[in-house]
């Protein structure tokens, strides 16, 4: 197992290097100019050129990349070109925020979605199944800003139960922070519920119809025991893989939700950096999100193997 983990870490490092190269290469063809972005559209070209010269953005992309990598190996993620502060000073708090939101969304969304999938599968073909499937699909199809605004209107403005933004005041305790994160977490739950529930439902139906479930029933085990001991363990395996990928999204891909709830997470920070062609910040952000994705996927794979004894690490390799 240790060999497998080491090999996965090696592959992850190669992936991250490639990722950073791709970000630099793609950014080079993106429209926009850092100097213009900082000084505004009406600054003279002379001033813009002088600023680009000062920031070093007029050097070749290869030279900029080499500089960035050289800093990285010394533990320096670079300096934001537009803000003129170390990238980590912006990324660190944003990452912490993203983890908080991802955590709250995870603990609400995942159990609820799995429960909905299980109930739908157990009530296969009945009204409950159809309701869960249709509602889940409808919520998933709804853009985040629509469901988010709807939730804000109901719970923050009409009922006044929850705050409209996700950012608690500095120094707020954990309970208050949790309260502030509820609305965006519910919004994300609406987005993901249908998808995770459908995967769980499909796996459950397959497992319920399997030979081992039938055998267990024939052995005289109660329905509850069959589901708990035999069906769930097998049915949740695909769900784990799906949930793992969603964690990456929850940490680094929430631009719309972060903007709507005025939350300073990694998603909106990366989007802003891309818009302003702030390469050191953009690459550092993408790298951090990449590390989160790869770590979560590795954990999911290990969990998958632990839950499924049929899988041998040799075959995974």
């Amino acid at each position: 197992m240790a060999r497998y983990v080491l090999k996965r870490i090696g592959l992850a490092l190669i992936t991250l290097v490639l990722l950073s190269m791709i970000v630099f290469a793609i950014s080079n063809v993106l429209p926009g100019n850092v100097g213009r972005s900082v000084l505004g559209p009406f600054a003279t070209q002379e001033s813009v050129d002088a600023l680009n010269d000062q920031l070093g953005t007029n050097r070749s992309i290869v030279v900029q990349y080499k500089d960035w990598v050289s800093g990285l190996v010394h533990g320096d993620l670079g300096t934001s070109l537009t803000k003129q502060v170390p990238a980590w000073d912006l990324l660190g708090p944003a990452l912490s925020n993203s983890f908080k939101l991802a955590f709250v969304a995870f603990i609400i969304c995942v159990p609820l979605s799995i429960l909905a999938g299980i109930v739908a599968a157990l009530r296969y073909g009945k009204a409950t199944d159809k309701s869960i499937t249709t509602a889940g699909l409808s919520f998933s199809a709804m853009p985040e800003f629509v469901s988010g605004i709807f939730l804000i209107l109901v719970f923050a403005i009409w009922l006044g139960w929850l705050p409209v933004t996700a950012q608690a005041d500095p120094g707020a305790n954990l309970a208050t922070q949790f309260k502030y994160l509820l609305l965006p977490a519910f919004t994300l739950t609406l987005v993901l519920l249908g998808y995770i529930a459908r995967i769980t439902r499909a796996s459950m139906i397959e497992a319920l119809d399997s030979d081992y479930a039938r055998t267990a029933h024939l052995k005289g085990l109660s329905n509850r025991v069959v589901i708990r001991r035999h069906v769930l363990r097998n049915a949740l395996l695909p769900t784990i893989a799906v949930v793992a990928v969603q964690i990456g999204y929850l940490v680094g891909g929430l631009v719309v939700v972060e903007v709507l709830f005025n939350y300073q997470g990694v998603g909106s920070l990366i989007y802003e950096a891309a818009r302003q062609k702030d390469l050191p910040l953009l690459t550092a952000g993408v790298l951090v999100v990449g590390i989160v994705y790869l770590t979560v996927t590795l954990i999911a794979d290990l969990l998958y193997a632990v839950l499924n004894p049929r899988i041998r690490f040799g075959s995974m390799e």
Partner: protein
Amino acid sequence: MDRETRRVIEEYRRNEAGPLENNVIDELVNGELNREEFLKRGAMFGMSLGIMGSLLAFTGEAGAATTARTQRVAAKAGGTIRVGLTAPGASLEPYLLNDGGALALAGIPGEYLTFTNPKGVCVPWLATSWKPNKDATVWTFQLRKGVKFHNGQTMTSKDVVASLKHYVGVKQSNAGLTPYFDAAGVSAKGPYAVEVKLKLPIGVFPYLLSQTTYQAIIQPAALAAQPGTWVKAGMIGTGAFKLKNYVDKKSAELVRHDAYWGGRPPLDGVRVTYYQGSAPMVLALRAGQIDLAMQLANQEAQVFKNNSKFTYYSLPTAAHRQLCMRTDQGVLKDPRVRRAVALTINRPQQMAKILLGDGQVGNDNPFWKGFASTDPSIKQRTQNLQLAKALLTAAGATNLKFNITTWNFLDHPDHAASVQAYAKEAGIDIGIEIMDVGKYYDSEPAGADYATTTPWLNRTCSLTEYGARGVPNIYISRCYMSTGDWNASHYKNPQFDSAANTYLAAAELKAQRAATKRMAGLLLQDTPVITDYFINYVTASSSKVKNYVPEGISHVRLAKVSLA
């Protein structure tokens, strides 16, 4: 008028007033200025309120001087106001300020030499008075005494000189006044006077050093001498509130500056929260999480109109859009064709639909009706489809087809679509090209020569936004004159340039108005740019916010504000 008042006025005219001030007084006495215009002009030339009041009394306008002041309700002391601002795109260093969120926050601790108030009057601020030389090429500003920076240091001419040198001297800056003066032209004349030598005569120069030139914040000399240190040092300025804590893109906390020169502010402090756009700010205001928002999108702000829990503000400003048409090449080269496009637009209807009434109809020139220099007799262009069609036929352009290029910003897409729809009524086929901001304002392709390739300056027809200013100088010199670096229509008319130069150098209102009338006539005839509307500054606050007066440039002035 009593004998004492007459004596004061005569003494002022004889001993203090220069030729420009005496001209203003003559214009008032001859009935060429109404009282509001006189207040604007008088304040610009540094005339005291007392003198202006006496002069108005002399001409039968007694008591008028006080009307420039906003009626205020009694302020209740204490409390912290929660303000929503849009997150700044870049740095808050004064020389780098370029967006609303950045200048709004920097403008709370930071202040300027003069102040253009919401009525368009340039009034004393850190400078108490100013005087030009005979031809308005040298301006001397007398500084307010006893002004304290947030670090306790007293403001003197040394700080003002360093700040103005900082403003025009940093090469990597967004300074719009560099064509008018440079660092060598700024000098101290004693501890409380500063002289600025201009490269060319400017009759309205004090306006240009007000908050509309938002990079020209007055800061301690030690900070101004080292660009890039202001934010790190805690944004030390002279404003009513001083910075306590700042978290980039997230929030800021400011506390009362007890030694504020304008008197102790009623509020204890200000808590600023940054928002990624207007919509989240509207929701936060509705939910009671903030008390006051900076500029809001018109559509989104409608919910606050006629709502007793909120106060809705709609301030007329000179902010406008320029639909620039290339005059030197392509299908719009013929002025008849450009006039035809302009004649298709039903301006009142367009303004009602796009701005929901929060604006003013434009007349294809930058001369907003609020500018004292705008001649009120300029005839308004109105929709005339018959004439538009006739012009197209005469120009042989009955199958006219072109694109409007713009970027995805506020009303731009709706604006372009409205022009497209109106033009269609005259058989003109307009396509719309909407770009990302980066592409619209970058060279094309990236790295190519900027001036000759960037879409906003080189497309056949481009739609670009211009913010509010106290005077039209920047618009005229940079967008319409043949030497202008923002001249997107590539308009070159020696007659216009001549009138523009006359306007820029003129200190007398009569001469300015004559020049703007001439320029407006030429612009109606040539129509290089369609300016179909001017935009009001729209925002809202909770009804418990008292004495707040919005500003067209997005600054949030809170020195007199209180919470009920």
